[in-house]
Structures are given as C-alpha cells and as structure tokens.
C-alpha cells in the first residue's frame, strides 16, 4: 500500500511540474517584457530608457535563460513567494492568502452539500427507475447542469427579492454561518449536484443487477437495508472518483459566483487580475487552481484501492 502511494506520488510530481511549465511558458512568452509592463504604469519615462531597463533587467535576473527563470520561480513558490502584483505592487502571496479562505470555505461547504443532497437523490432516482420521480430528478439535474452560474445567480436574486419583500440583496461576505452565504452556496453547488446525481444513478442501476443484491432481496432483507448496505457501498467508489471533476466545476463556478455575489475570494481576484492584465496574479491563481484539481486526482488515486480492494495500480477508473 505504501509502495502504491509512493509510486502514484512519484508520477504525480513531474505532471505538476509540467503543467506549471506550460502555464509559465504561456505567460512568459505572451506577456511581453515584464519591466516595460511594470514601468509603463509608473510615472516617469523609465519604460523608454533602454539603459535603465537593461540595468533593472540585470538586477532582477530577467536576462537569464527561460528555464533558469522558471526554476527560480518554482524555488520562490516553494518559499511562499509568488512575486508582486503589477498594479498594486502588493505581494501576490498576501493577496491570495487574504482571498483563499473565502473560496476554500465556500468550496468545502459546496462539496459537503453536494454529497448530502446528490447521493440520496441519485439513489432514489435509480431505485424508482423510469417512473415520474426518476424523470423529475433526472430532468432537474440536466437543467441545473445546463444553467450557467452567472445566469442562475442574478435570476435567483431577483426571485428572492420578489418573493420576500423587504429582504436584502445577499451581497458580500460574512463567514460561512452568515445567512448571505446560502444563495451563492446553492448556485455554486448546482453543477456538482447534477454531476453526482447522474453518476450515482448510473452506478446504482449497474449494481442493481448484481447477484448479491438479488440474493439479499431473496432472503428477505428489508429494502431500506439493501439500499443502504448492499447498494450504496459499491456505488460510492465511482462517485468518489469524480472529485477531480467536481473541483474543476467548483473552481470555474467560483469565478462567476464570487463576482455576482460580491464575495472577496480567489474568483473575484481572477477577474480583477484579468481586467488589469496582472500576469503574476493570473499565473499564481492558475497554478493554484490546477494544483487543487491535481491534488484531488491524486487523492482519488490513493483512495481508490482502499475503497475497492480489487483495483490494482494499473486500473484507474475515471
């Protein structure tokens, strides 16, 4: 087991480095001269003074080869140094550590909500396959999957104000126990819930035809116990493997949800950085987002043999 985890980890690290290299290269070759980018915003005419530019380039180490610069960027990352923002001059690490808790709390709540809501719904839909209940659940899941967060968010806000007259617009951040969190949390969870409902339903339908379910029913085990003990346990495995995909939908959704509901998280930071073409911030957030997804995938890889002892390390379900 330890050996399996070690192998997975050993394969994982180069993948992370390569994703970082790809993202870094895009920013490096696309962004243009960083010194000009910085000093174009500054007063004075440094940007048009070639000698001073060369001097700064020398002192900042920007005349070194690409790979050396990439290496030192990674080295700085490991020491918690993400560079400075082009617009505000603040350290990117400070900006991110101020914003990240908001996003992380939201994401965790969203994953919890998804698990609590979606798995039972998927189970019910599959047990009542091809009935009205099933169609209703499946139809709503497809509907939720298709509605973008930036459409659902404002629409629900309008609805809320119309239904409860005098209620305030849920705008801003007051921690996860604040009532304003509810609407953004639901909107953020729509897509993950839809994903897991469909996944659970498909997995349950597959398990229903297994011999052990038939045996359990034949010997008179109550339907409730069959559903919880015999069906749900093998179903959880394929559902857990969706964690990486859920992470992607949450990271994507957070961009819109945070903007619409005015939450000071990483998503809003992304949009601000994009409007200001603030490369260090964009780069750092992209790396963090990819890292989250990849660490979820690694977690799935490590958990998989624990959940399904039949799986050896060549089999990796997606």
């Amino acid at each position, binding site marked *: 087991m330890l050996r399996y985890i070690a192998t997975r980890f050993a394969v994982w690290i180069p993948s992370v480095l390569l994703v970082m290299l790809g993202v870094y290269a895009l920013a490096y070759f696309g962004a243009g001269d960083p010194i000009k980018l910085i000093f174009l915003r500054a007063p004075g005419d440094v940007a048009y003074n070639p000698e001073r530019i060369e001097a700064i380039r020398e002192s900042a180490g920007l005349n070194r080869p690409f790979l050396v610069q990439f290496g030192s960027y990674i080295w700085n990352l490991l020491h918690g140094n993400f560079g400075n923002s082009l617009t505000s001059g603040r350290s990117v690490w400070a900006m991110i550590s101020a914003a990240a808790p908001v996003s992380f709390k939201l994401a965790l709540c969203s994953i919890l909500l998804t698990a609590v809501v979606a798995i039972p719904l998927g189970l019910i839909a599959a047990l009542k396959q091809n009935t009205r209940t099933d*169609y209703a659940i499946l139809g709503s899941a497809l509907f939720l999957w*298709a509605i973008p967060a*930036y459409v659902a968010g404002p629409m629900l806000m309008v609805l809320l104000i119309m239904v409860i007259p005098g209620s305030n617009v849920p705008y801003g951040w007051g921690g996860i126990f604040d009532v304003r969190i509810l609407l953004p949390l639901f909107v953020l969870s729509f897509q993950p819930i839809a994903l897991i409902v469909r996944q659970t339903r498909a997995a349950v339908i597959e398990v229903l035809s297994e011999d052990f379910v038939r045996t359990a029913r034949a010997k008179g085990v109550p339907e409730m116990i069959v559903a919880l003990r015999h069906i749900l346990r093998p179903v959880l495995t394929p559902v857990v493997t969706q964690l990486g995909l859920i992470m*992607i939908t949450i990271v*994507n959704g957070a961009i819109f949800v945070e903007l619409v509901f005015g939450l000071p998280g990483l998503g809003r930071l992304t949009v601000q950085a994009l409007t200001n073409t603030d490369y260090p911030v964009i780069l750092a957030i992209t790396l963090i987002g990819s890292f989250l997804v*990849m660490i979820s*995938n690694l977690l799935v890889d490590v958990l998989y043999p624990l959940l399904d002892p039949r799986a050896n390390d060549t089999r990796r379900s997606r």
Partner: protein
Amino acid sequence: MTVVPMATTDIKEEPPVSLWRDAWFRLRRNRLAVFGLGVVVLLAFTALFGPYLTPFDFLSQNLDARNMPPSLTHLFGTDDLGRDVFSRVIFGTRTAFLVAIVVTAIAVVIGVTLGALAGFFGGWLDRVVMWLTDMTMSIPNLLLVVVINASLKSPISSWMESRYLATLNPFYRETIWVDFLLVFGSMALISWPPYARLVRAQVLSIRSRPYITAAQALGLTNRIILMRYVVPNALGPLIVAVSAGLGTAMVLESAFSFLGVGVNPPTPSWGNMISDGLRVWQHYPHLLAAPAAVLGLASVAFSFLGDGLNDALNPRGAK
C-alpha cells in the same frame, strides 16, 4: 410473449431495421429528447433565417426609446442605446451557432485524430496522448482560457498592427479576425480532451470485441471491418458527445464574454448581452433575463437531446 408453434408459422421476412431507424424510434419515445430536438431545430432555423425576420436592425439605435420594458413593438424591450433586444437576441443565435459549430468541429478533429491514433497504435504514442489530455484536463478550463487570452491577445494584435503599418493592407486592420481566432482557438484548445479520451476508449474496446475477431475469421477485408463494424459502433457515443458539446460551447462563449475575452461588440452575442445586462439588472431586469433565458433554453435543449441520443444510440446503457 406468446409461444408460437414453430412448424405452423410462416416467418414473414421483415426488412431489417437499421441502427439509425432503431435509434430514431427510441429517441421519439423520449419526451425530453423530443423537446430538446424541437428547440434545437427552431434555434438552428433562427440562426439561418432569423436576421431576415427581425422586426428591427440589430444595430439601429433609437435614443428616444432607451431601456424600454417589453412591449408589443419591442417584445424583449430595448437596451441602453435603444436597440431592440429581440432582434439582438435573434442575431445572437447566429453568433452562438457559429461559435458552437466551429469550436466543436475543431475540437472533434483534434480529439478524434489523437484519440484514434492513440487507441490504434498504443505504446508510447498512447501514453503521450493520454498524458496530454490529463494535463489539459487538470487545468481548470476557464483559468486556462484566461491565461491563453491574456498571453496571446497583445502579441497577435501588435503583430497585426505592424503588418498594417508595413503593408497598409486593410485586411490587417480588421481586429475582428483576431477576436474570432483567439476565441475559437482557445475554446477548441480546452475542448478536445474529452473527445480524444472517448474515441480512444471506443477504438480500444471495439478492437477486442468478438465480432471483430469473427469478421476477421470470415476473411472480411480491413476496410469492410472498419466501415461496417468499427465506425458505426464508435459513432454513437461520439454523436452524443458532440450534441452535448455544442451546448457546452455556447455556454462557454457566453462565459468568455462575461469575463470580457469573448466576441467583441457590436456583434451581438448572448454572452455580451448577459454581461451588459448584469451591470444594470437591478433597474432593467429584462436586459439580463431575455438573453439569459434564451441561452439557458438552448443549453438545456442540447443537454436533453444529448441525453436522449445517449439512451437511443447506446441501448445497453453503457454510460
């Protein structure tokens, strides 16, 4: 089913039901899928002929009638420049379909080629392709687009500008091509991995099926095996993926416009209209509601259709 004595029946030779006919029958029984198909056909018709049917020009401004609520003259009201929102939504259908079709086509070509090569040849090629798809899929796709756009937009625009100054060819002045190139290109670059993965899995599983071995044992040529057995069996899931992908691409385009990296105004696109509407939705909710509802409808329709096609083309429920 009733048991019929074999000896006394004349077995009527019915014409064989083809795969597609069979799938069509199954699709028609699925009410959600029929609804989806209806909406998709209606939208496609609108995209083709809509601009000739609109009551107003999508660009004509009427500054005396700004931000009007929906009425009989202006079904969806007017926007901040007095333009008819209904006409703009209709014209936006064309943009949406253009983006969806072009992006999906590019993504399918890349994905199918890579996936088929990987599945067919295996070995190191397979490993490289799969690793590439894994990499692309582990970067959250909106962030990847943000990076691509932030990095490529300014070099391409400045290159176009220098070409224009050097040649004075008006072609280089049309920044709209840069926009489309960037939007289409970056969307296709993040959309191909699912297709590659799907086709590879299909090719791998079909190659080892007994009916392929049987066909080979019968001495059929590779071409016939490919055309009659491999292609139809791999096509079903691909059609499902494409149908769902078209809807996803439409949503993606609007997400880009929302972030300010999509198709540029004044070309009407649903995403543009939504992001404009978001700024004023407290005062003029119809400016947000109209394009958002149409986008939602289109996306839901494609997703219902894709799901119905999935059940119709893969009857064994292999999801």
